[in-house]
């Protein structure tokens, strides 16, 4: 991604980024499909049955990548936001806006799969564990970011306000995480610990990593797609959009 960052810097104006993204998207989709295929194959057919958790543990192959992505995307989003505030580039705001819904979706999936895992393993859908609680708060932060941007109609203003919120959030996430952790352990030795699963077999680790790669590729592809749509919306009246082939040529229905 850091590599991509440098490239994107050169392409920091929407009209040159738009076609570039258009060219990259299919590749990321292809990679995402490939990794998903391999990952699913590993998760269902290669990885053995777990001694303690039976087949239920297979949820791990989406739960963990979704959890990782939810946290990772927030950082990337805040990074774009910081760039946007510092350099005042239009593209960075669009990228941050494009990433947020995907991040929120990942947080939601982490919560959902975790809950579905918790029921058979812990006998309850939810416990107020540190990691669970801070993931829930992360989800709220995403929703706040999206709601804030949705409430502002001037895109440039929305970008800047969103950027400030994202940065404040990024400062707060570690604080929140540690406070929640401390809160939880002070009260009780957590009634259930997430780490008691047996040392993971190599295959499991591989499956998780491949699935994480798949999620990653997916996130990039979808963020680029959404960024392109946002560019069209925001720059609808500029010359470069009006002369795009899909606007001029395409079969106007």
């Amino acid at each position: 991604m850091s590599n991509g960052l440098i490239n994107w810097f050169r392409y920091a104006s929407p009209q040159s980024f738009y076609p570039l993204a258009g060219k990259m998207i299919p590749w990321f989709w292809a990679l995402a499909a490939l990794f998903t295929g391999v990952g699913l194959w590993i998760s269902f057919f290669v990885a053995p049955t777990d001694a303690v958790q039976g087949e239920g543990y297979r949820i791990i192959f989406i739960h963990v990548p979704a959890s990782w992505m939810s946290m990772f995307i927030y950082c990337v989003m805040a990074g774009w936001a910081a760039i946007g505030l510092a350099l005042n580039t239009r593209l960075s705001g669009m990228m941050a806006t494009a990433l947020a819904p995907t991040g929120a979706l990942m947080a939601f999936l982490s919560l959902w799969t975790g809950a579905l895992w918790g029921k058979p393993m812990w006998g309850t859908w939810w416990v107020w564990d540190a990691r669970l609680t801070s993931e829930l708060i992360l989800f709220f932060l995403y929703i706040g970011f999206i709601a804030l941007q949705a409430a502002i109609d001037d895109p440039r203003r929305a970008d800047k306000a969103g950027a400030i919120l994202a940065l404040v959030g990024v400062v707060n996430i570690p604080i929140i995480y540690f406070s929640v952790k401390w809160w939880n352990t002070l009260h009780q030795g957590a009634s259930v610990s997430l780490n008691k699963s047996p040392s993971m077999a190599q295959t499991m680790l591989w499956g998780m990593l491949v699935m994480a790669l798949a999620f990653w590729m997916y996130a990039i592809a979808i963020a680029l797609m959404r960024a392109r749509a946002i560019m069209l919306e925001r720059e609808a009246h500029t010359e470069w959009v009006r002369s795009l082939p899909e606007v001029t040529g395409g079969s106007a229905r």
Partner: protein
Amino acid sequence: MKAILAVVRRDLLLAMRRKSEVLTVLFFFMIVVSLFPLGIGPETPLLRKIAPGILWVAALLASMLGLARLFAADHADGTLEQLALSPSPLGLLVTGKIAAHWLVSGLPLVLLAPVLGIQFDLDAGALGVLVVALLLGTPLLSLIGAIGAALTLGLRGGGVLLSLLVLPLYVPALIFGAGAVEAHVSGLGAGGHLSLLAALLALAVFFAPWAATAALRIALE
């Protein structure tokens, strides 16, 4: 009737235009509910015990949030004067506004409550009672709230004053609503509580729009 519908449509359109409106009420509800475990501690049995109370208090606060704006926006921009001068009776228009308020900030809570109940480890039966109680209770909250909103219209410090007026009036809804769930959990049966709630609701449906309209007329003088 047509006028009621026009008002409901208009208020819903406005709520949709502030796109996130409905969602934010929901998330506010969720966040307030989640704050309690953070303040109180994560022990499940304790949390299960106080869950109905917490859910009800949060629902009450959430449905109160939108109240201050119920008439205030229309008052500030002169729309309320126009409504008062419109050919349809003001009472009907007010009823429409109350209905729209419930649709935007009551109904969603009812639908979300079971999910939050699960976080507090309530069982299926208790969740059912919770939903029914909220279904009867949230319109009651909107109706009572409308009177308070009309009374505090245009007053200095309106928002806070409003909660001061309205929260005590909400107490019966809270007691019977949370009580219903607790009665069910402790095996007493929730029927009595629920029928009391229903009776209160019936009373409010007749009384509240009239009272709110009278209060509005005073505010407009």
